[in-house]
């Protein structure tokens, strides 16, 4: 196995070493590097290793965050499209069966099953990947809604920069523009409507619930973007807030 410092002393050397790999073992690498004359002292070894690993990790992490975000956004858009197609095929097949008592094209039934399988797999992918990208947002909204919010915002970075009043109506752009033209009241919620905390709150308090949820989701997106650690207390705070809002009712 070739230790990293025999490939150079910078981040490129560390990246090449990662790509090449080796057998895990207990070796005194600083000692070996000093003996080989690559570094004068163990301290110099550590200084160079620090600079190289920080830079190599930053490059790889930035790439991975980018890819993870593209994956989540594409997956959730695909999920929506598969759901629409499934609904449409189901509707067609139902009409057909209603009129003739059967559907005589076997491939149609198979195509429908394939669509369903694709939908389920895509949802599984989203449920696995979104928490890695946005652990807190996923914890509060569920992975699929979290992914939809990231997709609607155009990225986690963009979502983290939005005021919570915008997050609240994400996905309700049509209603928002109708309101801005003066033709309608302002929308109370966008896609966050699918969250049980909005949908299952009585109509009177639904606007308050949507505002409270959007506020916490905004904080969650910021923690995910700028910190990255899971903070379960955010969910507890949201639970309490919703309970208070619902308690006002009746």
């Amino acid at each position, binding site marked *: 196995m*070739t230790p990293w410092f025999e490939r150079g002393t910078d981040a490129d050397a560390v990246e090449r070493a990662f790509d090449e790999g080796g057998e895990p073992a207990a070796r005194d690498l600083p000692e070996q590097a000093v003996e080989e004359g690559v570094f004068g002292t163990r301290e110099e070894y550590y200084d160079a290793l620090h600079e190289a690993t*920080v830079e190599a990790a930053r490059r790889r992490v930035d790439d991975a965050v980018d890819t993870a975000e593209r994956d989540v956004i594409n997956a959730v858009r695909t999920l929506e499209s598969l759901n629409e197609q499934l609904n449409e095929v189901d509707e067609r097949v139902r009409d057909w069966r209603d009129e003739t008592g059967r559907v005589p094209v076997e491939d149609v039934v198979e195509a429908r099953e394939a669509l369903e399988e694709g939908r389920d797999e895509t949802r599984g992918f989203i449920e696995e990947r979104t928490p890695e990208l946005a652990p807190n947002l996923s914890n509060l909204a569920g992975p699929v809604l979290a992914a939809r919010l990231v997709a609607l915002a155009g990225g986690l970075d963009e979502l983290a920069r939005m005021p919570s009043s915008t997050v609240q109506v994400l996905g309700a752009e049509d209603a928002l523009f109708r309101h801005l033209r003066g033709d309608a009241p302002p929308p109370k919620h966008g896609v966050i409507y699918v969250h049980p905390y909005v949908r299952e709150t009585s109509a009177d308090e639904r606007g308050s619930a949507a505002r409270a949820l959007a506020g916490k989701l905004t904080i969650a997106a910021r923690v995910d973007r700028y910190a990255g650690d899971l903070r379960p207390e955010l969910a507890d705070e949201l639970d309490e807030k919703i309970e208070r809002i619902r308690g006002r009712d009746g």
Partner: protein
Amino acid sequence: MMRWVEVDGERYPATQGEQLRDERVVDGARVWHPRRSKAAAALVKDVEMPLEDARVLYLGGGAGTTPSYVADLARAVYAVEFAPSPAKRMVEVAETRDRLFPIFADARDPSEYAPVVEEVDILYQDVATRGQAEVAVKNAPFLRDGGRAYVVVKARSEDVTAEPAEKYEEVADRLGDVFDVDRTVDLSPFYDDHAVVVARR
């Protein structure tokens, strides 16, 4: 040097180092809160962890919070994390600690970082994936003879229905194949359904 400080009538470990985020600082030392770090919880529960001047392989570095405390004490800390968002933060944390080496890799495949990680005195692991024992076994070759392993076991990430005590025993059994297992310490009341298995190579 690790110190013990009094906070709200409790004794907590504390380290000397640049403040990270919003941790409390008492007498110039960063309070290492047992509810915010499983390693701190283990220390408060009397687990002996000779981190001072040690070389440490830290698997599951998360957003770098616990590794930052370890790096305040140790000679060298190799922190491995694979989830991109926490790893991004861990890299920022590593910039504040010149003996904290961030590694963005999957701890289940240690051959990837073998050319970078030296012999270590301590293996500390807190990964929440299935097969937690397997991860420690695969990384055992980095640990020197007589070196110590601390493996955090999260009962729920293995099987939501199993009894935590059974899960701890199962992990300890598997670790017994390559380590001498000393004991298993429950991390309650700081963490529910978590324990740390203490072992020696």
